[in-house]
């Protein structure tokens, strides 16, 4: 006998085979995307992203730090994600596990590899003092597709962020100026279920996925890939997936720019 989850999974699967979805979306449709900014008043930039019932807050804080020895004249980017127990009955308190680590690192690479941030301009004193850009992803409600929601929130929070002045050895948070973002990396996860592709998977749909690829595009370049879950893809499937993601990220980028 199947339990409720299994029955739901089977329904989701049956629907997708017929080109339909449980919530009547088209296979390549996202749920409603809502983006709100200024949600965390102490952050220098923040954004809340909702994809249906999935809800993520991203906050950006600036701080002063010592640069890495191999990049003495560059600011530092740090991305952290917490899958706290609030977001799901299955999450536990404690240090970030594999899922949170992967989430943070995929978002990090999207920003880093796209050279979205002007790291050289974030150097205050070579080898001594550079700005740290600290991006914290806080998951509030988890109904699938954390990757796309988090990447979108991070991009928006960075776009919105204002950098404090640094005067007389102190960070002056009351004085800020605009923080330039060179590129806007946006992620889209393409999910294979049987011989179909779907986008923006709900929690149930993630469970029945045969594999997923999170593709991060800037306006005109592919800057990060991450295949997730079990299952495999042929080369032709991958090339299709990159194109599907490209189109969708163009649309998502418009929402936050």
């Amino acid at each position, binding site marked *: 006998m199947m339990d409720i989850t299994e029955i739901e999974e089977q329904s989701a699967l049956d629907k997708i085979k017929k080109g339909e979805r449980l919530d009547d979306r088209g296979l390549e449709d996202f749920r409603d995307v809502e983006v709100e900014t200024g949600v965390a008043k*102490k952050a220098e930039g923040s954004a809340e992203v909702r994809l249906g019932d999935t809800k993520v807050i991203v906050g950006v804080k600036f701080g002063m730090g010592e640069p890495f020895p191999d990049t003495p004249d560059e600011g530092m980017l740090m991305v952290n994600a*917490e899958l706290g127990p*609030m977001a799901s009955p299955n999450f536990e308190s404690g240090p970030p596990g594999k899922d949170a680590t992967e989430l943070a690192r995929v978002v990090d690479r999207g920003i880093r590899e796209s050279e979205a941030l002007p790291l050289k301009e974030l150097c205050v004193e070579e080898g001594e003092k550079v700005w740290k850009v600290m991006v914290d992803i806080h998951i509030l409600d988890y109904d699938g597709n954390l990757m796309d929601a988090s990447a979108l929130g991070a991009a928006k929070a960075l776009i919105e962020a204002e950098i404090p002045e640094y005067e007389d050895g102190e960070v002056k948070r009351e004085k800020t100026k605009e923080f330039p973002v060179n590129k806007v990396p946006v992620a889209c996860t393409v999910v294979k279920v049987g011989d179909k592709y779907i986008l923006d998977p709900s929690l149930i749909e993630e469970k029945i996925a045969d594999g997923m690829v999170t593709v991060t595009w800037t306006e005109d370049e592919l800057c990060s890939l991450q295949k997730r879950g079990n299952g495999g893809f042929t080369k032709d499937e991958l090339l299709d997936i990159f194109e599907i993601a490209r189109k969708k990220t163009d649309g998502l980028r418009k929402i936050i720019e």
Partner: protein
Amino acid sequence: MKKDKKLLKNGKRIDGRGIGDLREMEAEAGVLERADGSGYFRMGDTEAIAAVFGPRELHPKHKQKPQRGILQCRYNLAPFSVEDRKRPGPSRRAKEIGKVAEGALSSTVFLEEFPTATIDVYMEVITADAGTRCVALNAGAIALADAGIPMKGIISACAAGKIEDTPVLDLKGEEDQGGQVDLPIAMNADTGEVTLLQMDGMTNIEEMDEMLELAIKGCEKVAKKQREALMKTF
């Protein structure tokens, strides 16, 4: 503590409030989908979200109590909720607040109805501008009610304090930094019982009497706001 800035002028505070005024409040129930109950509370710039899961089986099993359930709280500040980014995960301060929050909320829940179970209350502070534990508790109490947990009354919290030798209600960040006493309380607004009480600073019994009086009246206003939010969900 810097005391160079004048915090009180002609009985008015830096944001124009009187001695016994709360900051502007906002409350909402049912803000999350996955949790069994959830709540949002804002007081001035300080805001928090709470989620309740349970009653559900307590793990590990050897912690289960045969006669009654337990209520567990996690209080946490988001890394971006404060001036200088906070390391993720509960600090020593947060652990202590989690514990007193358990004391504050447990008293109102009919835990004897849930032997061996746990009710988990997770509170996340999104922006911290003083009064974080009170705001978190207010969200937590809304979440408990939203989850349909049977309770003896709503728990409502706010802080009184002393600035420039004057008892006042609901300190905001600058007042807290320049203040002399911080007195957060939580109260069962239906029974009038104080279920959380902490105090830092130097004071005497007369001042305590005044501050408690202010805080108790504040809690009653908070309770009204919480109830309004809960009404909207029915």
